[in-house]
């Protein structure tokens, strides 16, 4: 066991604790950014003027009408920006457009009013003259027009061409699938003011306060040390507040700078959904070769991400998609090309999984499609292709612990009584003409760490006060995922104090600087390492003091649950007394902690290296029932086995697994982004722009039976207290729902039929798949040797 992964006796990590803010949540006393403006006086409210064109030149912007509305204080346009007009990091996304709008709904100007009603009326009174330009809305249109931006990476390992030439079975096809709206319940919002010390104080709902600080810095043209960003907590984020939140914070800060008053920017749902980026939809063209046993021999694919109007995080999303096209399967010869399409829609961004789900979906779709052609059960086809020891990924990283795939799979087969239930399902399908059931299993292997090595660092600041109470600051943000709960447990474990001795402060850039985004599932790994480092520094100093007091060498001092004792516990002193004694001995009671993940390297040019510290594994079994009449379906049962290492906080991890699964199922089955692709004046407008038209899962989509278990014997050497990241990987367990639907649809066709299924697999999509399945089995293409 490494020092990082080793747990002391009686650790607080591993215990079941509810979310640290649970009591605040249920009583409504937990505050969010938008609860703060009523604590201030003179707050101005902002509302955007949104583009009514998908792509156009701005000929004239007439603000006169807005200023005639009583209560309108200021209208902000591009000319008001003192620094660099860019809300991203790629210089392709102006905070406010100078002369060209790039998507329907883009903010052209912001109106500040004494209240929201005035700001809205002011925004409606701004007149914009446009000269419409040609626009590309669909991914197909962008590909046809060869409209791409950013890098075009290539993974090329072995000789895929030769392998495909020699393969016994070769299939090819195309697959396009939808993106996903984050639909965090709390929309984007920020509140900025020039505070009593003259600095720009920004409260923001963001996953990446340091980047907010950076972007506000270049937009305002002031150094970072004059800007502080605080994140209390977020009402959900899911990647949607990793990059997309910065512009709104910048508008608030710019407004505060221009008016000298606090400025609140809160997007209502319609504005949020029409302005902010979403999960990338992808197009894939592919060709795959198999041998007679169903082993994958080679894969060639071109992945095109629907990037929208600017790059945002599209390049790293694409990179992760390409690095996950293998999912859990060994592909000896592989060639994958990646592109980002540029079109006139919102700028698509990070979303839980960050491209991983899209890459994996491509291969899972292939396996689901070709299994009947290979004469194999899809479950068996998947298992035969699992990685084994000694194999490496398409980007040459050795796959560590591949045996866990087999272990997860077996634990699932046994625990969920798969074979018994498959027999039951077969009987049900015999007896039922109008409804069919199916059960599908899919695995997940997900790489943990930021692909870009530099991001894999974190800081913490731990303060012990004279009364023994402890304040922990770290660079991660809380969006509901339970990071703060885990950090409290890590600090309590390392310092050997009770959980209630510690308070966790809101995330602030003036406490811990230069942080990475709370993203890539890695925040517990990174911030946990930093918190542990800071706590260890303090603990080691205190151990010296205790050693003298208790008369033993300092390495024989143990800290546990508020008591500091010698080995065997013969002599002891309370934590509180020890802290006080240390103070009087002039021992420093605070420490800055730092952590960086060792052993990572990545060459983005070659798409080669070892970008991931480890892989998280899991598998799910989903059982569905599908109705022939309308394509509607129910999710009857879901069983999950997931590898979280030695869990830091089991209730939190369970919540991440279940919540990720349902969110993934929403993406794959229900959530249906529709854009106006017509030539009407509303071309490019998002048609599903609210909760009434964009449906996320409700209680009615929850599996009737939902059982989650954690993989046994799962200690992870390379991570904090033996744990593993859990934020993103479970989302991809939901492939099992899609594959179960495919198999249930096949129940309406003659055996051996390959079922094409759209994504999302809405009832309508399932209905048409059933219609097609009933007619005939359609092969994409097949060649047998």
């Amino acid at each position, binding site marked *: 066991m490494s020092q990082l992964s080793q747990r002391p006796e009686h650790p607080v990590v591993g215990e079941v604790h509810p979310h640290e803010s649970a*009591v*605040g949540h*249920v009583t409504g006393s937990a505050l969010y950014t938008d609860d703060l403006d009523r604590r201030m006086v003179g707050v101005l409210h902002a509302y955007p003027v949104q583009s009514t064109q998908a792509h156009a030149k701005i000929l004239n912007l007439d603000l006169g009408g807005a200023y005639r509305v009583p209560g309108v204080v200021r209208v902000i346009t591009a000319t008001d920006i003192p620094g660099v007009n860019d809300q991203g990091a790629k210089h392709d996304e102006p905070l406010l457009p100078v002369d060209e709008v790039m998507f329907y709904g883009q903010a052209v100007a912001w109106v500040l009013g004494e209240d929201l009603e005035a700001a809205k009326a002011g925004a409606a009174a701004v007149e914009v003259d446009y000269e419409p330009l040609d626009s590309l809305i669909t991914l197909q249109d962008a590909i046809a027009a060869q409209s791409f931006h950013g890098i075009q990476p290539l993974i090329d390992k072995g000789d895929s061409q030769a392998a495909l030439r020699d393969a016994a079975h070769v299939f090819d096809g195309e697959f396009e699938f939808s993106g996903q709206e984050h639909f965090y319940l709390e929309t984007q919002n920020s509140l900025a003011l020039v505070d009593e010390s003259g600095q720009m104080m920004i409260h923001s709902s963001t996953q990446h306060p340091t980047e907010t600080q950076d972007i506000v810095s270049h937009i305002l043209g002031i150094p970072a040390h004059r800007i502080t960003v605080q994140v209390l907590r977020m009402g959900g984020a899911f990647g949607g507040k990793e990059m997309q939140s910065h512009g709104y914070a910048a508008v608030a800060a710019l407004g505060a700078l221009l008016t000298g008053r606090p400025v609140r920017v809160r997007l209502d749902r319609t504005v949020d959904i029409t302005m902010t980026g979403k999960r990338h939809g992808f197009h894939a063209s592919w060709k795959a070769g198999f041998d007679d046993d169903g082993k994958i021999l080679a894969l060639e694919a071109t992945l095109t991400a629907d990037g929208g109007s600017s790059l945002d995080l599209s390049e790293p999303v694409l990179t992760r998609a390409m690095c996950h096209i293998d999912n859990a399967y060994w592909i000896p010869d592989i060639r994958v090309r990646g592109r980002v399409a540029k079109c006139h829609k919102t700028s698509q961004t990070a979303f839980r999984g960050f491209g991983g789900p899209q890459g994996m979906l491509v291969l899972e779709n292939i396996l689901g499609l070709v299994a009947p052609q290979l004469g194999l059960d899809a479950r068996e086809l998947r298992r035969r292709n699992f990685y084994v020891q000694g194999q490496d990924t398409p980007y040459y990283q050795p796959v560590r612990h591949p045996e866990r795939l087999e272990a997860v799979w077996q634990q699932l087969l046994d625990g969920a009584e798969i074979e018994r239930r498959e027999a039951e399902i077969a009987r049900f399908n015999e007896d039922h003409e109008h409804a069919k059931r199916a059960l599908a299993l899919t695995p997940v292997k997900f790489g943990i760490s930021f692909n870009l090595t530099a991001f894999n660092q974190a800081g913490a600041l731990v303060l012990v006060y004279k009364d023994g109470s402890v304040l922990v600051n770290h660079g991660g943000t809380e969006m509901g995922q339970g990071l703060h709960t885990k950090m409290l447990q890590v600090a309590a474990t390392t310092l050997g104090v009770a959980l209630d001795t510690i308070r966790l402060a809101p995330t602030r850039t003036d406490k811990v600087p230069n942080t990475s985004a709370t993203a890539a599932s890695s925040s517990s790994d990174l911030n946990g390492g930093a918190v542990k480092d800071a706590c260890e520094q303090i603990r080691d100093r205190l151990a010296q003091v205790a050693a003298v007091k208790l008369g033993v060498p300092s390495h024989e001092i143990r800290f546990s649950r508020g008591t500091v004792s010698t080995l065997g516990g013969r002599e002891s002193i309370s934590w509180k007394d020890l802290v006080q004694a240390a103070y009087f001995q002039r021992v420093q009671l605070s420490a800055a902690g730092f952590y960086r993940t060792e052993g990572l390297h990545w060459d983005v040019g070659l798409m080669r290296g070892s970008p991931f510290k480890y892989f998280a594994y899991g598998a799910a079994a989903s059982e569905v029932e599908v109705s022939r009449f309308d394509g509607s379906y129910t999710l009857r049962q879901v069983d999950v086995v997931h590898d979280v290492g030695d869990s830091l906080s089991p209730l939190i991890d369970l919540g991440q697994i279940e919540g990720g699964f349902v969110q993934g199922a929403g993406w794959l089955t229900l959530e249906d982004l529709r854009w106006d692709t017509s030539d009407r004046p509303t071309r490019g407008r998002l048609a599903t722009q609210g*909760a009434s038209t964009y449906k996320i899962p409700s209680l009615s989509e929850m599996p009737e039976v939902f059982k989650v278990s954690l993989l046994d014997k799962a200690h992870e050497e390379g991570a904090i207290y033996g744990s593993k990241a859990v934020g993103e990987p479970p989302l991809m367990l939901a492939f099992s729902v899609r594959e179960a639907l495919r198999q249930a649809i096949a129940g309406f066709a003659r055996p051996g039929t390959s079922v094409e299924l759209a994504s999302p697999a809405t009832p309508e999509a399932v209905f048409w798949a059933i219609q097609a399945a009933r007619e005939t089995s359609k092969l994409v293409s097949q060649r047998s040797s």
Partner: protein
Amino acid sequence: MTAKTTPDSQCLITVNGTVREFTGPTHTNALDFLRGEGLTSCKEGCAEGECGACSILVARPDGDATRWTAMNACLLPAAALDGQEVVTAEGLGDRTDLHPVQQQLAERGGSQCGYCTPGFVCSMAAEYYRPERAAPTGTLPDVEDTGEQHCGPNGFDLHALSGNLCRCTGYRPIRDAAFALGTPAVDDALAARRDQPAPTVATTDLSRPGTPTGQLGRYRRPGTLEEALRILAEEPEVLPLAGGTDWGVEVNIKGARARSLLAIDRLDELRQLDVTDTHIEIGAACTLSELERGLQGRIPLLGKLFGQFASRLIRNSATIGGNLGTGSPIGDTPPALLALDAELVLSSASRQRVVPLADYFTGYRQTVRLPGELITAIRIPLPLGELTSFQKISKRRFDDISSVAIGYALTVEDGIITKARIGLGGVAATPLRATATEMMLEGRVWEPETIRAAARVMGEEGTPMDDHRASADYRRAMLASSLERFFAEQLQETNLLKGEGT
């Protein structure tokens, strides 16, 4: 503008036991009012009654007692709460004294980001206090169930949470928290409050500056139907407002502002339910939830509809008359009411007339209702057709708008279909009856061959369109497959009955 000094111009609302005065513009919704009062547990997630993050408890009448009723604060005008009692998550419990609902949710991991949580707390508390919940089974027919089990061992009906969205948890811990609830303690003040009458309905007349340009907005709640009809006759620009679940969306999302609103949802005359030998007459201002309870399963087709109509939160506000008053082609009651041969009673200050629902809709959101007229009642003639079904085609089962909705009421005597009524929604600019299909069924033998022949006609009914909910082809396909599904359903029901008989 100087405010009038009559008592009517003051709007006092009891929130968590404290009287607070609402002084904002009349378009202000209860959500913004409560947040303005510092009660930030009430959250805006969507502002269109879909997410439930703003769910609050309102004391509503239940006979001589009070029922804690969960509603979307975003769709409820603050002025509608004049003289009423409201409880928010803050009022249910605090850090040192959690309410049982809060306790269960907190302990079981029912919150992650916590933003939707206070809304879940309120919706769950309403169900916790539902008087029938703990009663022995059988006292209340499970009229809204569409054949699926939604109740926990403690009687908790998950439909209570159908209007609340959570993006984090996947719902399992929320369900478990709901099913773990016991019964209220003997000293539970909110439980005891149920035994007292609900607050009386205040008459209200507020005139307030509304928009930034200073235009006045007026909100009136008259005391009698007569007065309401008089106002409508004299001031044709007045907008009558019942549950307001449609209007609230217009206000919040589309920025609609009415100069003058007339609240009619609490008028006694519109809230009666009469059963005679020849018909059932439903007061137009009965909410869907009140009807669910009041009808006690007497109209099985409506029983099949209720559970599929929006969410519990919406059904607690929305009225049956309002669902017809909007004239929407995708309302869920018209297809069912058309199949029931319903008639509308339209009243004005000068006259009353009865119009068959089939003649009521004239175009997209157009009806025969004249300015100055109100829908006062819906009449459903007896006897009812025996074979009924409500088929709602939508992406999501809870709280979605239908792409196609079909209501069936058939009478079969000695194997012959003697009467067929089929109501359709979502396939034309108005709800309509599938008259050609009905003709293909009436007088024929109730058998697969008849169904197959009629299904071909059914597939040609209406003029379906493409939109973001569904394609025109899918809508046509749903019409075409509907009869076969109906036949299969009836066969299954018959088999179940037979099964029980032996």
